[in-house]
């Protein structure tokens, strides 16, 4: 067995540290992969648009626009945070409204009705 100098000890220490570092991130990667395999839904974040949330949760977009009191055409590209600010509501409230609409647009609830035709400004109701 060779005697270890300080350089070799430093090398062994660095090697073990890197192994721990790699192991930590490997565990996180596997944990995330397992989590996302079992959980279909991403948490709703401020950067997401209503269209993205509908796409991510697999519900028709008009259901979410309706829940927020927004016209579904043309699609509103604004992030949720901006919509909440525009409506003077806290983000948590907007998130809760959307979650409620999502739950009611999925089984066991009946499928939501088709989107209403866009309002025609030229015609009276």
């Amino acid at each position, binding site marked *: 067995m060779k005697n270890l100098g300080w350089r070799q000890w430093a*090398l062994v220490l660095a*090697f073990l540290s890197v192994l721990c570092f*790699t192991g930590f991130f490997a565990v996180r990667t596997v944990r995330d992969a397992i989590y996302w395999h079992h959980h279909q839904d991403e948490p709703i974040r401020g950067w997401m648009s209503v269209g993205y949330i509908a796409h991510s949760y697999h519900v028709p977009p008009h259901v979410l626009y309706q829940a927020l009191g927004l016209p579904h055409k043309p699609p509103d590209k604004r*992030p949720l945070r901006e919509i909440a600010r525009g409506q003077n509501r806290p983000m948590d409230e907007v998130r809760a409204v959307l979650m409620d609409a999502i739950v009611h647009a999925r089984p066991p609830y009946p499928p939501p009705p088709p989107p209403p035709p866009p309002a025609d400004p030229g015609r009276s109701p």
Partner: protein
Amino acid sequence: MSITDQLLAALLLYGLPVLFGVVVIASVGVPFPVSLMLVAAGSFAEQGYMKLWQIIMVASMAAILGDQIGYGLSRWGGRRLILRIGRRLGGESKIKKAEALSKRWGGAGIFLSRWLVTELGPWLNVTSGIARYPWRRFVFWDVLGEVLWVVLYVTLGYIFSDRVQAIADILGNLAWVILGLIIATILGWKLFRYFRPVRVSAEKTAVLLDTAS
């Protein structure tokens, strides 16, 4: 709202100019969540908010421009500074050694740091510039790696368009795992070389026996 959320919101609102700016700045070395931006852009393309070919063009050009800035600054600005310090400390030979190493192995390093271990990208730009890695070869490996990186991440975002956050989380962790494995392999190899038994060839044994007798 976190910086990541703000950047994603800006990408959604203003599209390509934001993508261009963020990728350039990140390629120079500012730690922006650029992989997440690319995955998100791919997802927005799938939903019809952006065009896929435009994203790939703009992001590739931005990444290459950012790398050129890093390389250029360190080659024509940083090199003089390093050489001056090196001369004072008597480290000129080490700089020359680094240059030789960079010229020999630089291509693979530049290529892999563009798309596989992206955390090292800005550092490789600086070391390539300081070591005077030939510019044409740098551009060749840079373009190849950056286009691959952009196509890979944007396509992932396009395919898994309903899982932007999830894909970005997994890719972020995976990049650290790959970086860790590369460093562990290098350190492990050095340790192995130190601990392995020294083999003495038959010729050397004969010489040793001759001198002993």
